C-alpha cells in the first residue's frame, strides 16, 4: 500500500515505513538511543529528501522516546535531577549548534561535514565502547568485580549536587558540559544525541548503565521536540504523515525493545550497541571513500 507524503512529495510503501519505525523503535527501547543516527540514513535510502528526513526523524524520536521513558519511569530507572541538569546544557548547546549549522550551510559543505562528524564520533564511541565492554565481559566471566573508575577532576569541582538515583555526589558542571557538547553535535548531525550521551554518562560521569538509558531518553524527548519545532518553523520540512507512519511502527518497537533490554546484561547491551554504532560508521565511511554510482546530485529550492 502506497502512501503519498505531502511535504516530502514522494510516495512510499506504508509497510516499509512501519517496519523501519519498528526496528528503530526497538533499538531505542533497548539501548536508550533515539535512533536518529539510523533512521536518517535509512530515510535517504528510501528516496526521502535529506532535509525532510532529518526534520521528520527528530519528530519520530519524540514519540518513541516518550513511550520508552514511561516504561523506565515505572521501573524508577530515570534520574530526573540529572536529566534536568543535562537538559539545561543540551538546550543551550543545541541553540548554539543551529547557529554553527547555518554558518556552515552558507559555506556549502554541510553534507560532507555531517558525514565526517558521523564517521568520527561513531567510530570513536563505538570503538571505545566495544573494547571497554569486551574487557568488562571477560572480567565478569572470571568473577573479578569490575573496578569503579575514579574521576579525580570531576570530584574536585564546586556546585556539588546529590544525584540519588544514580548514586552520585558530583559537581553540576560536568553534566552541564556534557549536555552542552551533545546539544551542539545533535543540532549539527540532526540526531537526538543518545549515542553520544549514553557513553558520556557512563564513562565521563560514571553513572550506572541501567539509569543511563532512561535518563538519556528523558532528555532526548525535549531536545528532539525543540528540534522539530525549529525545523517546522524555519525550513518547513517536517512531514507529519511520514512521522506518523514511523511513529506507529516505532512506539510498538520501543515496547518490545524495552522488554528485551531488561533480559540482557548491561555488558551485553553495551557490546551490541557498540557493534551497531561501528556498523553504521563503517557504512558511512565507505560511502565517502568509494566512488559513488552517481557523482552528480540535484537539489531544488532552499535545501
Amino acid at each position, binding site marked *: 500500500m502506497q502512501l*503519498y507524503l505531502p511535504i516530502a512529495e514522494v*510516495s512510499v510503501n506504508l509497510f516499509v515505513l512501519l517496519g523501519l519505525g519498528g526496528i528503530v523503535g526497538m533499538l531505542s527501547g533497548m539501548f536508550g538511543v533515539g535512533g536518529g543516527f539510523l533512521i536518517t540514513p535509512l530515510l535517504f535510502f528510501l528516496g526521502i529528501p535529506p532535509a525532510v528526513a532529518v526534520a521528520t526523524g527528530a519528530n519520530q524520536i519524540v514519540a518513541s522516546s516518550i513511550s520508552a521513558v514511561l516504561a523506565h519511569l515505572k521501573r524508577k530507572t530515570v534520574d530526573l535531577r540529572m536529566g534536568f541538569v543535562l537538559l539545561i546544557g543540551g538546550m543551550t548547546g543545541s541553540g548554539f549548534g543551529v547557529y554553527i549549522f547555518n554558518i556552515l550551510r552558507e559555506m556549502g559543505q554541510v553534507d560532507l561535514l555531517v558525514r565526517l562528524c558521523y564517521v568520527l564520533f561513531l567510530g570513536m564511541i563505538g570503538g571505545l565502547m566495544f573494547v571497554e565492554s569486551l574487557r568488562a565481559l571477560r572480567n565478569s566471566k572470571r568473577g573479578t568485580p569490575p573496578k569503579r573508575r575514579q574521576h579525580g577532576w570531576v570530584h574536585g569541582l564546586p556546585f556539588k549536587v546529590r544525584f540519588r538515583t544514580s548514586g552520585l555526589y558530583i559537581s553540576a558542571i560536568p553534566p552541564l558540559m556534557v549536555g552542552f557538547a551533545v546539544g551542539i553535535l545533535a543540532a549539527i548531525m540532526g540526531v537526538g544525541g543518545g549515542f553520544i550521551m549514553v557513553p558520556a554518562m557512563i564513562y565521563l560521569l560514571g553513572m550506572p548503565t541501567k539509569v543511563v538509558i532512561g535518563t538519556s531518553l528523558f532528555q532526548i524527548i525535549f531536545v528532539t521536540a525543540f528540534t522539530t519545532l525549529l525545523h517546522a*518553523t524555519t525550513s518547513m520540512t517536517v512531514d507529519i*504523515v511520514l512521522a506518523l507512519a514511523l*511513529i506507529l511502527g516505532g*512506539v510498538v518497537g520501543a515496547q518490545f525493545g524495552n522488554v528485551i533490554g531488561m533480559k540482557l546484561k548491561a555488558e551485553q547491551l553495551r557490546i551490541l550497541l557498540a557493534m551497531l554504532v561501528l556498523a553504521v560508521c563503517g557504512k558511512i565511511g565507505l560511502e565517502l571513500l568509494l566512488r559513488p554510482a552517481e*557523482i552528480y546530485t*540535484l537539489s531544488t*529550492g532552499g535545501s
Partner: protein
Amino acid sequence: MHRLAAVLILLANAVSAQQIPPPQEEVVLGLSQDQVSISTDFDGSNILIFGAIKRETPIPEGPPLEVLITVAGPSVPVTVRRKERRLGIWVNTDAVEVDSAPSFYAIATSAPWSQTISDIEDLRHRVSIPRAIRSVGAPMTVQDSQSFTEAVIRIRTDNGLYQLAEDTIEVSQQTLFDTSIAMPASLTEGAYRTRILLTRNGMVISQRETVIEVRKVGLERWLYNLSREQPLYYGLLAVAIAIAAGWGASAAFRLIRS
C-alpha cells in the same frame, strides 16, 4: 551532398509552408482527465490523451501526418553538484545552476523521433528533453557545463520523471490519435502544460495547448497549507501527535500486560 539535399528539402518546405494559407489541418483534443488529485494513497496516474484532426480539405499527398505530445511540469531552477575525489574522499566540488528545468517532462510520438520532427523545428518549439531545459550561465571554473545538464536528464529519466516514448501514439487514418502518459508517484504540484504538435515531413503544421492541473487534495492539501501558512502550529501539532502516540502506546502495552 546528402546534407545539401536535406537543406534544400527544408527550404522547399519552409517556402511551401509560407505559401499555404493557415492551417489546413487542426487538432481537436481530449483528455481522460484534466486534473490529477494527489490524495494520501496516490500512486501515480495514467492520463489518456486523445484527439482528432479537423480538416476542410482532403488529406494532403506526401509523407504521413505525425503527432507529438508533450506534458511538462512546472519549471524551477535546479542546482547540480558534482563530486570529486579530494584527499581520498568524495566531496562536492563544482556546482552549476540550471536556470529552468521542468519537474516532469514526457514526450510521446507517433513514429521514431527522427521521422516526426526536424531539428530546426525542435529548436523552435523546444520539444525534445534537452531543449526543454534552459541552462544559461555556468561559473567560469566549470569547463563542461553540458555534462551537468546531461546529469539532470539522466537522473530524472532514471526516476521516471523524464520520458521519451517513441512510436507510442496510435494514429488511425491520419485523423484519430491517442496515447497514455504515465505520471509517477513523486509528482509536484502545479499546472502541467500539455502540447500536441502535428507535423508533416518534420515541420510543425499545427499545435494546441492545454493544462493538466496537479493538486493535492483533502488531508494532503490541509497539511501542506498548514505547514506553509502556520508553521508554528504545524510544528506544535507534530510534537503533540508524537507525545500522544508515545503515551498512548505505553498505556496500551500496560493494559495488555496487566
